[in-house]
């Protein structure tokens, strides 16, 4: 019976994963960790198979103490590492430490840990490069966005992903990287959610790319399969919904205004200043022109993962 350590439980995905694992009779104990207090992170959740550790993952010593303290005592065999800085517009040294260095520490320590045998890393579809010259349907060997102009949010995620990939086959612990489609939910770091969650969404005039979005339920299902699986690898985790951007905006009930490309960036900056939304057009410019859809063939074959939960769109389809 696996005991699982989940980092980043103060996110909707982390909380859902914890709830799911507690219902899963194959899981022994769940150690939940985040930087918040227990009440802030878990609310009123109490369960005999659940324990909570407040920990600052940006500090290497604290990561060590988590893994060789609570995790070892509870016989944790699998780590599901979800902790990542969510906001695009805020970065800096501490965000980098959380996004990259905490994972590096976890991988280092897992290599010599007495009980940990598997590390599941949640990565992101946003690490893939989007270009006119590249396929729309993206498999795991698709080029990553290594452009120096990419925001720290992307650069950190690429570095974390590659850090995990570089250890595969060399560590005693098995490493699984799940490159997840964005979940259309608040506080998940989804840029598309931030785009939709406003009174008006601007999109480039004359372009309507395909987007793929997931639900928290599907991402949790994929993580659970990875937790109980064996072997290593990188897997795309697509969502159930693949549709044009305009359709996604319409079905979310947000007004949309196609605008010339040169106007959109200032419009979004203004939207950010007025409404405080996190959406960054600079980061998503290419995706809003050419689209990106994850190819989940490998996850289907190796993990048995098939997205099954469509987004609960507030509005009926415009194409019906």
């Amino acid at each position: 019976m696996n005991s699982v350590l989940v980092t980043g439980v103060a996110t909707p995905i982390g909380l859902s994963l914890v709830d799911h694992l507690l219902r899963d009779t194959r899981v022994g104990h769940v150690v939940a960790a985040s930087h918040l207090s227990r009440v802030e992170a878990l609310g009123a959740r109490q369960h005999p198979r659940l324990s909570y550790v407040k920990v600052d993952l940006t500090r290497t010593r604290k990561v060590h103490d988590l893994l060789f303290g609570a995790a070892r005592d509870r016989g944790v065999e699998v780590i599901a590492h979800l902790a990542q800085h969510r906001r695009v517009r805020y970065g800096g040294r501490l965000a980098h430490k959380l996004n990259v260095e905490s994972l590096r520490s976890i991988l280092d320590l897992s290599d010599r840990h007495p009980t940990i045998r598997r590390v599941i890393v949640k990565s992101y579809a946003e690490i893939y490069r989007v270009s006119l010259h590249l396929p729309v349907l993206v498999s795991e060997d698709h080029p990553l966005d290594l452009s120096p102009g990419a925001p720290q949010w992307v650069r950190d995620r690429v570095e974390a992903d590659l850090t995990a990939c570089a250890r595969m086959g060399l560590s005693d612990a098995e490493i699984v990287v799940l490159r997840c489609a964005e979940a259309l939910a608040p506080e998940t770091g989804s840029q598309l959610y931030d785009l939709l969650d406003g009174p008006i969404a601007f999109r480039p005039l004359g372009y309507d790319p395909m987007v793929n979005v997931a639900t928290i339920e599907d991402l949790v299902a994929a993580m659970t399969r990875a937790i109980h699986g064996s072997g290593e690898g990188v897997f795309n985790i697509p969502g159930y919904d693949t549709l044009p951007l305009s359709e996604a905006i319409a079905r979310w009930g947000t007004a949309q205004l196609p605008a010339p490309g040169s106007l959109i960036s200032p419009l979004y900056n203004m939207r950010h200043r007025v409404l405080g939304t996190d959406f960054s057009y600079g980061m998503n410019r290419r995706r809003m022109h050419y689209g990106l859809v994850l190819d989940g063939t490998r996850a289907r074959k190796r993990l048995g993962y098939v997205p099954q939960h469509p987004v609960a769109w507030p509005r009926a389809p415009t194409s019906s």
Partner: protein
Amino acid sequence: MLPTPAIRALTRALGSKALKDRRRRFVFRDAGHGYDQFGLQPDFVALADLVTSPVYRRYFRVESYGAHHLPGSGPAIVAANHSGTLPFDAAMLWADIYRQTDPPRAPRAMADYFVPSLPFIGTLFARTGMVGGSRGNARALLQAGELLMLFPEGTPGIGKPFKDRYRLQEWREGHCELAIRHGAPVIPAGIVGPEEQMPQLLRLPGLGPVPYLPIPATPFPLPVRYRILYGPPLDFSARYLPEQADDPDIVRRASNEVKHAVQELLHEGLRLRTGVFR
């Protein structure tokens, strides 16, 4: 761009019985919201059918030969010559394949990189099945059992000078590598007519993603008669193993075979016609 219900209403109001029947029988891989993963939408396919119909039937008066070689299902590649300054040949080939297959298959046109970057046009074409000409897109489509339509000459074919008409330009080989790797037959297609539709006077350097700006002798295409000829499928899977797709000699040999077949079809099409406009 018009919303999908408006497109649907338009095709219902203006479409012929045959067009509506094709729309009804058209099948595609719905990714969940009425679009496939690459953005194809059946109502836009019907719109393309509607828009190309008068051009196909009355303007270019397309004659189709050997369409029984087009497979009704499964992965396949239609490889054709490319010409005419503006890509009316691609539109007519698309329309012909859509009309001649049963059930109707909307071929997935592999466009040059700059086409999807064009506002409105790129999106509109994507709704009718066009995809950017990357190896990854082609691989995914063949694995999904789609019918690819491509022009191995690429942009140099469509932009060649009038004196080079019906002489195939440098013939790219990637389609044969894909055909061998995925066991997809290649159907050679020769298109006779477009070479004379817009004789090119001059080529100016391109702007942005557009590789060049053609200066044709006529402001619009002449009403030449199109003849589209399909040859028997070249099934390389009967001769080569998928791993032999990595052998440059084999791929080159296969590609030459396709090129030769297309050139033969062009000769045959030229023999069939009694005049450029007849």
